[in-house]
């Protein structure tokens, strides 16, 4: 069991049967009152954030949560197959768990997979991926104002809006959190 002195960012605890991770905490102590730790927990299954005051002396139950570095291998229908490089164990994870970023995943991409009671519950991609543009209409000459974009298809099949100067064969940097183009990468 944990008590308030164990609370730190990233601590994994079990509350009402759900796994949570501590995202923020603050020690609070009125001059003549009891101390507590005002803590924000993120539900590892739903992403919902809840705030709770943990009194000094109160106990928190550790959650059976494990974080493993795994490599993305290939897609199989709506599922993605990952491998733990330390023991070559393979795990199949539904694309739903990854959300819109799943179509930015190229073979061998290193990811972090969170397991709760041995079951994968969350996948974190690298913040940026570098992908080659495989299809895009040439930009219209003369239209060079800053914000104009055009759709492009990258090697994983995902569609990303890019500036007009991007051409087939360019490698671009994409933010996996927002699914947005960041910059062109010179080889």
């Amino acid at each position, binding site marked *: 069991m944990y008590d308030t*002195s164990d609370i730190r960012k990233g601590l994994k605890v079990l509350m009402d049967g759900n796994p949570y991770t501590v995202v923020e905490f*603050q*020690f*609070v102590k*009125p*001059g*003549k*009152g*009891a101390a507590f730790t005002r803590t924000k927990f993120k539900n590892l299954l739903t992403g919902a954030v809840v705030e709770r005051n943990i009194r000094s*002396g109160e106990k928190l139950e550790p959650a059976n949560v494990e974080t493993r570095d795994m490599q993305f291998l290939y897609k199989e229908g709506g599922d993605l197959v990952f491998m733990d490089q330390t023991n070559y164990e393979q795990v199949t994870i539904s694309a739903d768990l990854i959300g819109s970023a799943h179509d930015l995943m190229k073979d061998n991409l290193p990811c972090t997979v969170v397991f709760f009671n041995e079951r994968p519950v969350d996948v974190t991609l690298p913040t940026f991926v570098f992908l080659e543009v495989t299809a895009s209409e040439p930009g219209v000459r003369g239209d060079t104002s800053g914000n104009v974009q055009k759709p492009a298809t990258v090697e994983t099949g995902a569609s990303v809006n890019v500036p007009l100067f991007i051409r087939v064969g360019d490698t671009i940097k994409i933010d996996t959190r927002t699914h947005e183009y960041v910059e062109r990468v010179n080889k």
Partner: protein
Amino acid sequence: MTSVVRGRVIAVDGELAIVRGERGDVRVRTCAGWRPGDLVEASAAVQPFRGGDYPGPTTEVARLPRERLARLADRGAAMAALRRFFADRDFLEVETPLLVPAPGLELHLDAVAAGGGYLITSPEYQMKRLLAAGFERIYQVCKCFRAGEHGPHHAAEFTMVEWYRGFAELDAIARDTEELVAAVVTAVAGSPVARVPGRAIDVAPPWPRLTVREAMRRWAGVEVAGDEPAPALVAAVRAAGIDVADGTAWDDAFFAAFLARVEPALAALDRPILLEDWPAPLAALARRKPGDPRTALRFEAYVGGIELANAFGELTDPVEQRARFEHDQATRRARGKPVYPIDERLLAALAEGLPPSAGIALGVDRLVMLATGAATIDGVVTFAAGEL
């Protein structure tokens, strides 16, 4: 290349030197003979010192950020202004022991055990003995220790200034507090304007005042009598939409509402505030108001949401003081907390006769935070707990 920060040891033309100025024109003084400094342009090729016996601060441990160095200089200026303030008002500076056999018995303050006794959580017991011994105006700046406290406004080891006036009312302490804060902030910041992250607070006296009951009524929608049983206060706090469990103690129910509604409202004020007339269950070492036994002669000073100071019209009755100590001991025992001995010498001093007195404890680190605009207590101490 190394940046040119005051106090940093550097090398100029291969010779050991210490930076004396700030930015722009940087004065350096070499060690050799300590001859008067040369003027070096900030753009000059200043290299970390590599030769000789002194390695210079090349590691993260040795280096302190520029803002921290500036704040430590401000802290020194604040301490000088504080001592000047008390000297100007004929207060005597005293020093009482930090290591004692009987620390404060307050339920929510845990002492650090050391050397067969405890480190003080506040110097008040010994300072009251000095009042009983005949001093009329005394102050003390010292370290206090409170186990397990660490947060943006809390450190287990911190600096307190306590001062007491014999033959005086609580109001005299309130005026001292306003003037002291204004004087210290002015000494550091140039004008009586304190800073908390994101805004400025005019600390010029006099400060607005509000009773605790009015604050609880206005911001929490909770009526506090002071003599109601705990379940009645729990019900009132719940009726105001604040979640408290069944069986919550009176003080915990009070602070649930106070922290949820009153503190955020106090933090939003653009002026300091003295929160006075505390309900009797929160009297601590304060005496009750003449003719109003449900109210204690106590105030707290809040500036920019920071609880800066706590003052009492001092309890001088040895019989009531012993009863409160015994009650505190019983509550500590019931809640499984360490039970400290009663300070019999303090009770003996009260029995001898303590003049009508008022006193206050003010957090010096928090005052320096307000004067410098630092966001955390760790930013104004020389080395925080995590840096040792």
